[in-house]
């Protein structure tokens, strides 16, 4: 059984159908990439998986480890191990990163019936993670994403992912707005997160990220459907020929 199973998923936003029947399976230990032009439904898919308000599922099902995700609240999904790396991480002024993450980690631990971390335990835990991921935990002393550069925001997302240890990580355009050094750092983080117990879904416009994080499977999302799937070489083909071929198919 695949870790993530999406079958015939349809969803609409403001009454307009965006996802038009998506089928996708990701096994534990695999990294899949979803590519596609603007407006094809990539971000919508990430929000539907994480349960954001305003994204209405009109058909199909999504199972994580056999459990029906679609009946769960967003926080429940998060506690079950769904992590969304945001395309535009949100600023929360006045809330130190440590406080934010500690609240999140303890919520998840509580859900799993584990004991909550106290302040000291948590600091130790986070320091260990930051070291493992070759990142400084300095940014956790600052308010969540406030005044962060684009690169810092994305690194912060990766650090949060590392700390929360999700089963399924959905990374929405984690590469956007990054210079090459930041991209490498983020890619290293994502690679470190690869694990036999974890599935990852990377949403991206470009081949660039896939040079550093090599996916097992690439899917092309177009017009709310997956129109093509293939091995990593598919990315190169797309890079060369663009998405025009699908416009023709669609027409």
């Amino acid at each position, binding site marked *: 059984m695949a870790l993530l199973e999406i079958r015939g998923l349809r969803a609409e936003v403001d009454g307009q159908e965006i996802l038009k029947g998506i089928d996708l399976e990701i096994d534990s230990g695999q990294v899949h990439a979803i590519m596609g032009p603007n407006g094809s439904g990539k971000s919508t898919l990430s929000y539907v998986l*994480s349960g*954001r*308000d305003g994204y209405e599922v009109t058909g199909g099902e999504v199972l994580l480890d056999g459990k029906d995700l679609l009946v769960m*609240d*967003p*926080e429940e999904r*998060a*506690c079950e191990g769904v*992590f*969304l790396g*945001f395309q535009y*991480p*949100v*600023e*929360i*002024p*006045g*809330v130190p990163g440590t*406080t*934010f*993450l500690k*609240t*999140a*980690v303890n*919520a*998840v631990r509580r*859900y799993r019936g584990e004991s909550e971390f106290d302040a000291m335990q948590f600091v130790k835990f986070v320091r260990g993670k930051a070291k493992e991921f070759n990142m400084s935990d300095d940014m956790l002393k600052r*308010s*969540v994403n406030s005044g962060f550069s684009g690169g810092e925001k994305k690194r912060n997302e990766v650090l*949060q992912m590392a700390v*929360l240890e999700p089963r399924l990580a959905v990374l929405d355009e984690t590469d956007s707005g990054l210079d090459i050094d930041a991209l490498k750092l983020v890619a290293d983080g994502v690679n470190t997160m690869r694990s036999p117990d974890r599935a990852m879904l990377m949403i991206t416009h470009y081949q660039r990220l896939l040079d550093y994080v090599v996916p097992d499977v690439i899917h092309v999302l177009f017009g709310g459907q997956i129109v093509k799937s293939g091995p990593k070489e598919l990315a190169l083909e797309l890079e060369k020929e663009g998405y025009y071929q699908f416009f023709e198919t669609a027409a």
Partner: protein
Amino acid sequence: MVVNTQTIEQVQSATESYKYGFVTDIEMDHAPKGLSEDIVRFISAKKEEPEWLLEWRLKAYHRWLTMPEPAWAKVSHSPIDYQDSYYYAAPKSPDDGPKSLDEVDPKLLETYEKLGIPLKEQEMLAGVAVDAVFDSVSVATTYKAKLEEQGIIFCSISEAVQRCPKLVQQYMGSVVPYADNKHSCLNSAVYTDGSFVYIPKGVRCPMELSTYFRINAENTGQFERTLIIADEGSYVSYLEGCTAPMRDENQLHAAVVELVALDDAEIKYSTVQNWYPGDEEGRGGIYNFVTKRGACRGRNSKISWTQIETGSAITWKYPSCILEGDNSVGEFYSVAITNNRQQADTGTKMIHIGRNTSSTIISKGISAGRADQTYRGLVKIMPKASGARNYTQCDSLLIGDECGAHTVPYIESRNTSAKVEHEATTAKISEDQLFYCLQRGMSEEEAVALIVNGFCREVMQQLPMEFAVEAQKLVGISLEGSVG
């Protein structure tokens, strides 16, 4: 002065005409319902007050009769029936209180639980009759001895009237004159008790003083009167209130707090107010009509107000600073949270009189449910206040779409060298922020508490450490049920 027996007789004879009767026992613990000159005399007699104080009370009472209710605040309530209250009740006998926590409202206990308040303290707060050998009493006694070593006077104001009448007579009413406003006037006439603090010259008070540690804390919350005097070069930090809701049956609270800072002295006054706010439909709840004012009399003196206001059905409160001394500093840090049907009209006045005086105002208002909230502030620069400076920042946060937030800043500058800055923002908790937190596993309530605490951080940081952690939890509890 001895008890005026004649007055007591007068009161007793008057009781027959009271519909609800005169609740009294051999020791005369209760005055009859309602307010009259006799009641004022009765209170003063009960406290064996000197003549000047009785006269002062009576002047206040007669003035009160003629004063109109302040009508400028943006709050609404039905007229207060002053004759429907008791103005004097001696401390309740422990036998009247609940016998154990099992008899206390479970909702109250739930809140204590969430605030992480130790069991012993829960009992005290809920008014449970506790053993005479009670931890905090012995702690308080130890504290008291330590304070007295340094010449610090920290006692109830009634005790101070007996112990150091000159100080009380010199300073009481010198910052908030009895006729300042109708509520302060009422307080002056009928106040029953409160705290008194005197810090001698050059003494830095070695601990946070708190009403909480005043032994024999009497049931005097309704018309409380506090006077704090910091003599030259001294420092004191005073904590008022408690994050835990107190059991309280009085609806109207009209307290007066006066602070006096002499040359080079500093007073830091922190409040956490969490009285019963009424139910979700706005039934019940405390009317909190407080007059708080500090006078920076001396050069280089400083007064800093920090308040976390989460309770009460109506809050009407403007802790202010009169900056008389040259180079004196006034600060006001405020978080006010209103939920459900609560109303708050709160802010400050900074009156710059001396040269190079400076003031800072940071106000954070959070409104949820169908609550209404107003920041009302006055920065006044007098002609001689050359080089005066003020910085004001008022931020409002709205949760939901049925609440209101208003900012009414008055600035009056009569000196051209003054610098006055005002910034104001109004924001809503964004759906983006909320979803971001939920996606990391937090519940909606945790998320709101986190975001709001972030919004209030600048003010929270001003609180003494031991208060800050509880205050953060309190923010979350106050906003429960505000989202979703």
